[in-house]
Structures are given as C-alpha cells and as structure tokens.
C-alpha cells in the first residue's frame, strides 16, 4: 500500500492562518499551476524548506559511541503495514542497532487518526527518547503527537508534518524521497521507452499535498522542457485511488491514440492497468511511482508498465534514524531530508526491489521474469 | 346481567374467500366451567379460537362477553376485555425468568423513574404459583430451565392471572408426557375456582372427559352438537366427530 496520505485542502478564510500555511498554499498554487517563471527545479519541504540529500546525514564514530552511552530507546508509530513500511523499519533498525538505540514499541494505526493518537499515548508509557512516525493527516496528528512533543521526545517525521509544528523546536526533521527527481526520472523513463516522441496523458493527484504535487509537476515540467517531440494531450486529476479505473476508461475513450500514461502512484496505476486490460490495449506505456506487486508483475511480463520510479525505503529509514541521532546529540539537523529516487525497468527489477525495499521480489515477479526472458515488444 | 354466560357465541359464521371455515356456531361458556372444543383436523377449532381472541373477525354472527356485545378487530381488544389465550407454542421468552414472563408487557414499576419493581413481581408470582399449586424451583428460574409441563403451567398461570373473563387453551398438554399431563390437568381443574370461564381445544378425548363440563363437537366447520360431559360417552363423541355410526360389535379403544 502506498505511503501517501493527502494533505487537506486549505480554506484560508476559515482556518486559523499561520505563516506556514500561507506559504504552502502559495507555493502549492504556483506549483500546481505550473508557472515556469518561478520554476521549482529543486524539491522543497512542506513549508518551503530546501532539501538536503540523505547521504549528507552521517554520524562519526565518536557520536555513535556517545549515543551508545545514552542507552536511548525509540518507538515506531506507523500509519499502516506494508512492504514500504517494513523496508523503512529495516533501515531504521540498521542504524539504531549501530547506535545502541533499542526499538521498544511498534504500532500500526490502520489509517485511523484516533488510533494514531492512542498509539502515541500508549508508547509514551515506555518513555521512548525518540519517536519515528508518519503522521496520518496534519490536522488530526497535531493533537496526536502533542503528548510526545510536550515531554521533549525527539520526533522525526516521514512525509507529513503535524499542523503548526516547528522544525528544530517540536520536531527534528522531516524525511521524504527526492520528490523532484521522482517525477523527472519518471518522465525520462517514459520518454526513453517512447523514443522521445508521442502523446502522453498525465494522471496527477488532485489534492494539495506537497509530496505528490511536486512529483507530478516535476514529470510535467520535464516533458514540457526537455522533450519537444512529446506532448501532454490529456490531464486528469484523481483524489480517490479506487476511482482510477473509471477515470482511465474515460481518458482512453477521449484519447484513443495515446502512447503513454503517467500515473501519480502505484495504487491508482493498478486501476489504470485494469482499464487498459479490459480495453484490450497493449500499446500504451505506463510509468508510475512506488513498487507494487501487480505493477511489477505486469512489467516483468512485458506488459504496459514500462518503468517504475521508486523511493529508497531502506534509505529513508536510515535517514530517519540518523536524524533522530542528531536530535539526541543536540546536533543541528537539516529541516528537510530527501533520499534519492530509483528508476526501475524490467532489466533491474530484481535489484530495484532489493535497493528500494530491502527484500527479494515476490515469487510471482521472479517467475514472470524467468518466463519472459526477452521483452515482448520494442521500446527499450 | 350477572347470570349471563362469560362467553356467548350465536350463529357465528366465518369464511375465507370461498371457503367456509366455521358455519353457524352457537356456544355458551359460563364462569367456573370448562368447555371442550373437539373435532378432527380441519374442523375449524383453531379458527374459532382466533375469532374469540380477536385475531380474525367473524363474517357474521354475534359474540357476547358477560352479556355485552363485542366485536374485536385485533388481539389487544380482546385482551382488554378480559380474554387471555394460551397458544400451543406458549409464547414465553425463554431467557427471561418466570416472573418477567408473567408480567410481560405489564411490568410493575415503582418510584418516579419507572424503576422495575422486581421484588413486587417476584412476590406476586410466588403467590400465584402457590394458589395454582404450580411447582417450579423459583419465580426467578429462567424459563429455559423448566420442563415442558412447568412451562405449560407458567403459560396457564399467566393467562389466568390477567384474564377477567375467559381463558382459551389450545392443546394444553399435547407435547407433554403422562406425569406432566396429570399435573397440568390438576392446575386446569383448579382454575374453575377462580370464577373464570375456560375453553379448551383438545385432541385427547380422555382429557376432555376428565376435565370438561360440556363438549362442543365440530366437523368440517359445522357444529354437530353440544353435550353435557356427564351425560355422554366416548363412542357418541367419536361418532359425532367422524360422522360414522360406531359399530356395536367393535368397542372403541382408548385413544391418547
């Protein structure tokens, strides 16, 4: 399941405004409108922070030793269970083990904000020094992490930041994948498979959420700026992945001569794939973000999916853990840390799984790779 | 009109569409007496019971309770006029204790907040059981724990307690063994002292002859006749039920 959880649509008139909301709204508006005058070619944080690559986060041996002395503990407060979360967890444990930080509790809120609040309260009983979490929704999670914030627990967040929380004061850092690169590399991969020409549909995330907004727009900008013989002939926003199949049907009907489709993340991409299958369309190429078994399987079989751009979940976990270390040591952590994006095609599908999710590909994917040694059609 | 019978039916007629279920029935049941309604299957006995209970309305004819002309359009109206029915399935709530069943829909409350007066209901139940000589472990026993005969006794006790005119019983001991049938029949016999009129539908002629004062025989909806129990015998009743003259050479065997 995707690790994406959308941001709320802000209504400046009704909500209590803070400078941060305004900035995000403004930036969001700019980004969504694709205004190239203020072209953002760099990934930016939820409050407009500049990105620091995760590779810049390191701990010296002395620092590691100091952490070991502290005998710290950590709690992982997740929003769901998935391959992605398992990989992030593996990354965090890898680093925590080095620094002698013990993971004392793991929770799964099942996408329920109230549950996330309960989870935080419960793990607080074990007095962790550090909490790593993916806050479910900025509004609901503000209250959820309050207890931890007030007790001075070091908080490191994945993707989302609770409303009103200040970096360096309330939380150490927010970590996510390199959003701009994710979108750009998707564009590059699709272009390559279409030999740099053709008509493309852009299925983006129709909500104000800096993670998907930046990825989606990076794709769009790359096609527009770098590939003159390609054009985006159709744009369609979706907010509920369950509706993706219907949306794709409509898109295909309106644009029968599409060459490629970009889908904002894997879950709706599965719906788009289903729509293509039921239309009997084997020609259109799909590129999407995040590994998922049905998508990877289709790619292994030489189907519509031509490339998947994945974040490095293990690396995200590693970065979160090191950021936590910074917080414990009182070291200045970067506000917004990003892990690199990984383009995965049929050729490096197996390594892609290992690098991104720190696991072997599912058996079905391995079998499909074996069975379909040569790609069934050109384009690569 | 204190001498009027508790229940009086005159020329009762009921048809469902083209089918005549009951034809020209006239019957009196007085307080302190037990009348048995007998007949083969399809004779119309249960239709008669349902008409008296208010579930069906007669197509024509009169019904009087204590001399007063009545016309019921639903079961609640007949209950309001003091008629209680003990159905074959007993209509008891099995998970509830005996006293709650007795006071079903008529719970006693006390105080301003309408709090249930369990102690009061239990006491009243115990007294009723004593009066009727019903043997159950406790008024608080759950109905599910009681034997078939005990359950029947509870259902009869309930009907008796709330009836002011007439108690109708449909096959009261059909599902019981010999010992229990005996006990229940004692209870039924004892009801006569409570100044109620009792009408029993029964397949068992032995029971009818043990308990009733009058027997009304139906056959295919027609009333064949009413006999005083003491002045008739099984052979006559059987021949009225079946419509066949009993052969003098073959004595009737006892039926259950």
């Amino acid at each position, binding site marked *: 399941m995707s690790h994406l959880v959308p941001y709320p649509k802000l209504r400046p008139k009704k909500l209590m405004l803070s400078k941060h909301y305004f900035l995000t709204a403004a930036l969001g508006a700019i980004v969504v409108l694709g205004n190239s005058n203020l072209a953002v070619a760099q990934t930016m944080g939820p409050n407009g922070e500049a990105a620091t690559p995760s590779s810049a986060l390191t701990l010296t041996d002395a620092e590691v030793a100091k952490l070991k002395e502290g005998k710290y503990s950590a709690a992982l407060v997740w929003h769901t269970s998935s391959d992605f979360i398992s990989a992030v967890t593996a990354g965090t444990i890898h680093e925590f083990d080095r620094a002698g930080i013990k993971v004392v509790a793991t929770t799964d809120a099942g996408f329920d*904000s109230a549950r996330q609040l*309960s989870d935080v309260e419960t793990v607080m*009983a074990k007095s962790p020094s550090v909490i790593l979490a993916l806050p479910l929704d900025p*509004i609901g999670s503000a209250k959820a992490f309050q207890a931890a914030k007030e007790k001075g627990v070091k908080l490191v967040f994945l993707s989302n930041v609770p409303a009103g929380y200040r970096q360096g004061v309330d939380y150490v850092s927010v970590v996510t994948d390199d959003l701009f690169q994710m979108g750009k590399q998707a564009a590059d991969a699709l272009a390559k498979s279409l030999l740099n020409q053709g008509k493309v549909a852009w299925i983006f995330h129709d909500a104000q959420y800096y993670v998907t907004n930046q990825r989606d727009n990076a794709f769009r900008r790359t096609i527009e700026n770098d590939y003159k013989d390609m054009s985006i002939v159709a744009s369609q926003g979706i907010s509920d992945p369950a509706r993706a199949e219907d949306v794709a049907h409509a898109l295909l009907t309106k644009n029968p001569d599409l060459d490629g489709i970009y889908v904002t993340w894997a879950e709706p991409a599965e719906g788009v794939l289903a729509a293509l299958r039921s239309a009997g369309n084997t020609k259109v190429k799909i590129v999407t973000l995040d590994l998922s078994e049905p998508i990877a399987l289709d790619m292994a079989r030489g189907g519509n999916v031509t490339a998947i751009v994945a974040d490095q979940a293990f690396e995200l976990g590693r970065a979160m853990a090191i950021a936590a270390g910074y917080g414990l040591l009182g070291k200045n952590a970067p506000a917004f840390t990003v892990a690199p994006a990984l383009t995965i095609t049929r050729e490096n599908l197996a390594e892609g799984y290992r690098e991104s999710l720190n696991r072997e590909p599912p058996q079905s994917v391995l079998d499909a790779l074996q069975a379909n040694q040569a790609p069934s059609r050109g384009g690569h | 009109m204190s001498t009027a019978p508790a229940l009086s039916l005159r020329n009762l007629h009921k048809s469902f569409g083209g089918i005549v279920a009951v034809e020209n029935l006239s019957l009196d049941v007085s307080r302190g007496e037990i009348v048995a309604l007998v007949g083969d299957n399809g004779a119309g006995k249960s239709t008669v019971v349902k008409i008296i209970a208010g579930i069906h309305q007669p197509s024509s004819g009169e019904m009087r309770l204590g001399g007063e002309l009545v016309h019921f359009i639903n079961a609640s109206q007949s209950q309001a006029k003091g008629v209680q029915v003990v159905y074959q399935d007993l209509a008891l709530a099995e998970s509830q204790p005996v006293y709650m069943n007795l006071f079903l829909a008529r719970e006693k409350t006390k105080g301003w907040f309408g709090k249930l007066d369990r102690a009061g209901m239990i006491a009243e139940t115990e007294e009723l059981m004593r009066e009727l000589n019903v043997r159950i472990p406790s008024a608080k026993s759950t109905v*599910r724990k009681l034997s078939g005969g005990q359950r029947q006794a509870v259902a009869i006790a309930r009907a008796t307690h709330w009836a002011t005119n007439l108690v109708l019983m449909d096959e009261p001991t059909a599902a019981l063994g010999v010992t229990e049938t005996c006990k229940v029949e004692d209870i039924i016999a004892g009801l006569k002292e409570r100044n109620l009129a009792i009408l029993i539908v029964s397949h068992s002629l032995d029971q009818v002859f043990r308990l009733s004062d009058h027997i009304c025989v139906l056959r295919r909806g027609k009333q064949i006749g009413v006999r005083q129990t003491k002045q008739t015998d099984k052979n006559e009743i059987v021949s009225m039920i079946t419509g066949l003259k009993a052969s003098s050479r073959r004595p009737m065997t006892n039926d259950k």
Partner: protein
Amino acid sequence: MSVHSTFRRIPVVGQLEPSTYVVYVGFLLIFAVFAVLLRDQGFLTVSNLLNIVQETTPVTVMAIGMVFVLSAGEIDLSIGSVVAIAALLAAVVMRAHNWTLGVAAGLGAGALVGLINGALVVYARLPSFLVTLATMGLLAGVARWMTNLQSVPVIDTTFTNLFGSGSLFGIPSLVIWTALAGFLGHYVYRETRFGARVLATGDNPHAARAAGIKVDRLRLKVLILGSTCAALAGLLYLGRIQGARYTLGETDLLTVIAAAVVGGTRIDGGTGTVLGALIGSLLMGMLNNGLILTGLAVSEQMMVRGFIILVAIALTLREPHRAP
C-alpha cells in the same frame, strides 16, 4: 456436594451464568498477566491506565448502544460510517456557528440514520443485517463526499474540554463519559420497562407481540438509540483529536461487536449485559495497550490479540442454544 452446586450457593456471584462472568475473569486475568509481565514497562502507571480508559470511551459508548440493538434481535453495521458523518457534520457546523449547534447537528444526524435504518427494517420488512450493510456503504460514500476527503479541525475549547480533552476535578472527561454511559446504559437496560421489553422482543418477538408489546416501535427505537450512540462516539473522537476525518470509526465495527459479545451479549438477541460490554471494551483496549508495550511486532500483536478474543468468545458462547 459438587463444585458446581457449591459455587451456586455463593450469594449473587453464584447465580451468574458463565457467559456473564467470563469477561470479568478474562479482564482480571489479562490485567494480572500484563501487570506482572510489563511491570517495568509503564503498564501500571496511572497515566497509562487512564489512557486505556480514554482510548476506549468511544467504542464503549457504541458497544453499550449495540447491546440494546443486539438484545432486541437486530444488528447495526453502519455505526462506523455514522461516527465519521456525525464528527464531520459537527465540526463543520461548529466552525460556522457554535459548539452546541454542532453537537445537536451531530447527534441529530445519528438519530436520523437510525430512523432510516429502522424504517427500512420495520416498514419494508428487511432484515437489519442487510439494511445496515447497505447503509454502511452508502454512508461511507456520504462521509467522503461531505468535505471532499478533507479533514476539518476544531478549535472550540469548550467543546474539546467537554468531549474529550478536558477534565473535571482532575478526572479526565472521557473517564467521566465512560462512567456515565455505563451507569445510564445499565439502568435503562436492567431497571426500566423499555429494557425488559427489548430483551423480550429479542428473545421471542411473537410472544412479545402477543403480550401486547409494540414490537415494531421498539425495533425502531433501538436502532435510533444505537445510531445516536455512534454519533456521540463521533463527537468524543472529535473532542479528542480535535479534528474530523472521513476515516473516523471505519475500523471500529468489529471491535464494538466483539466487546458486546465477549461481554456476554448474544448476537441473536434475548440476553445481554451493558456492564459486560463496558468491561469487554476495556479488555480490548487493555489488550491493544499491553501488546504494544510488550514490544512485539505489529503482525505478532495482531495474532495474539485475535487468539485471545477467539478464546474469550468461545468461552462466552458455551450457553446451549435455545429451542426453536
């Protein structure tokens, strides 16, 4: 003198049916196990124990409502969606007007859903399982549509203090809500005519009707009650997390039913206990809390929890089925 008959002689406790006391024994047992196992992990601290009560309050309120519904021989599968709708509606109304209007709107929405469910059951003569299964889906869509998937924050401090985040004389308001729900629910269930008739209707609807109970009216009332409890739970969630989201309550249905059933209420009606449901809800919450504190991975927590609930339900349901 057997153990069984000796047990029966103990006043009060001796008359309890196994289904009634399994939940209390289970609760004490699990509490004892966690108290010993997790003594250094913060399980027994006052704040942790209070957390357990606060976390379970919305489910407790819904479980108590569900006890009435189940006892009458019905079921309401739509409560999860009602939670979200009531919370969202209350939050939106509160933002534009004041909190009392918001509360009224939220509770009103719950009552309305109950009325609709009840009308379909009573007048269209459809089984409540199917009706509420359908309305569950319909209302889930409504919850998403209401604010177009957006969350709605709540900033009215009077509301949040009363409904989830405040305290009275040092006792957290949610603890008071739990106590109130338990007390009121128990009283109505055990000490009023309404409660007695709910049980009779669930036990034998024909008997109830023959005795003169207005069975249809009662079914309607009970479904309205269940939905209104779900709406109240939505308000409590709203007060606690200070924001409404369309996913609120989505995963609560099974926990609510489990709490009621483990507590001793039968799914087919006729028998039940409000206090048992309250303890059942606390038991679930304690289980979640304790399992997290053991440090087990999420998948392990789920397996252990599922196993314990299975055992509890098996023990609770050893009553013989009633005769048809």
